[in-house]
C-alpha cells in the first residue's frame, strides 16, 4: 500500500467539470539506473491507472518509466449526481491499489 493524496473540491456543480489532483508516493524506478556496485536496479513502476465515477470510466492511463517519481496526475471529471470517484492503479508486481473519494454534487 502506497501513500496517496487526492485533491477534489468539497462541493461540485452538476454537469460542471471539476479538477481532480492525484499524488502517489512511489519511486517509479525506471530500470535505467545502476547502483553503487554497477548492478542494474530493476524497473519497478506503477504501470496503469484507471479512474471511474459511479462505475463509469473517466480516464485510463498506461504509464511508462518516463513518468516522474511520486507521480502526479491532474484531470477533469464531470458528474450529474453525487457519487464515488474510484482510482485504481497497478504496479509491475501486479499489486492493485484502490482509492475512493465521495463527491457531493450540489
Amino acid at each position, binding site marked *: 500500500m502506497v*501513500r496517496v*493524496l487526492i*485533491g477534489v473540491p468539497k462541493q461540485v456543480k452538476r454537469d460542471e467539470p471539476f479538477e481532480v*489532483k492525484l*499524488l*502517489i*508516493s512511489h*519511486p517509479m524506478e525506471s530500470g535505467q539506473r545502476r547502483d553503487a556496485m554497477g548492478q542494474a536496479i530493476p524497473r519497478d513502476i506503477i504501470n496503469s491507472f484507471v479512474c471511474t465515477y459511479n462505475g463509469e470510466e473517466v480516464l485510463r492511463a498506461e504509464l511508462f518509466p518516463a513518468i*516522474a*517519481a*511520486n507521480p*502526479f496526475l*491532474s484531470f477533469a471529471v464531470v458528474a450529474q449526481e453525487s457519487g464515488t470517484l474510484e482510482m485504481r492503479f497497478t504496479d509491475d508486481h501486479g499489486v492493485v491499489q484502490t482509492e475512493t473519494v465521495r463527491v457531493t454534487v450540489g
Partner: protein
Amino acid sequence: MSQSGDYGIDGRCQAALFALLMLLASACLAQEKRSGYQDASPETRAMQDDDAANPGFLWVQQGEALWSQRATGTLGSCADCHGSAPITMRGVAARYPMFDQKLGRPITLAQRIQQCRVERQGDTPLRPEGDALLGLTAYVGLQSRGMPMAVAIEGPARAFFESGKALFATRQGQLNLSCSQCHDGLAGQRLAGSVIPQGQPNGYPEYRLEWQGMGSLDRRIRNCLVGVRAEPLAPDAPELANLELYLGWRANGLAVETPAVRP
C-alpha cells in the same frame, strides 16, 4: 530634504552621515536575504504553491498520521502530550535549531523529535533520513509555514553559533571552497545551468527534484561537502548542528516554506 539654498555645515554633515550609513549597510548586506524559492524556475515554484500538487505533502500526510499513533508498549503518541499540532506546534520549527539545556548544545528539530521518542515516549528512534522522521519533521515544520524564521543565538548558544559561522567561512575539501564563497559571494550567478542560491534553510525538509524525494538539511549539507570533495559530516556530528544554527540565524526573517520544492 533640505532646500537647494539651505546647505551649510548641517547639510554637509547630513550628507556625510548618509554616505557612511550606506557604506556600512552595503558591507553588512552583500545582497538582500533571498529564499531559494526565488531562484527556482516558475514551474518548480508552481509545484510548491499548490498543496495538492506538492509531493512534500505525501510526507506531511505520513507525519500527520504518525503524530497521533501510539505504538504498543510505549508511553504515548505525540498527540498525547502535545494535543493538536496546528495549535501547539505553531511557530515551533521557526525557532530551530535551538539550544538544549540538558545536552548543553544546539539540537535540530529532527533531533528533538528523536529525543522525545526515546526519552518521553519510551519508543525507539526513527531511522535518520527515513520517511517517518522526514514526515514528522515536515508535519511540524508545516505548522510554521509563512512565519518568519526566529532562531536565537544569544546566551549559551553563542559559542556554538560562532563555531558554525566559522565553518561556513572555512575553505575545505579537494576543491578548497568555503560555503561562503558560493553562497554569499556568488549567489545569483550560475554554476552550470543552475542559479546559485544563498543556501537558506527555510524550506526543510524539502522535496528536491534531484533527489526525486524528500530530504533534510543534514542531507543537503552532506551533499555539498561531497561536492567540494571534503569529508562529509556524520549524521549526529555536533558541527552539523552548529552549522545549521548559524544557517538558521542567517535566514532569520525569511518565511518558513516547509515543505518546499527545489530543483
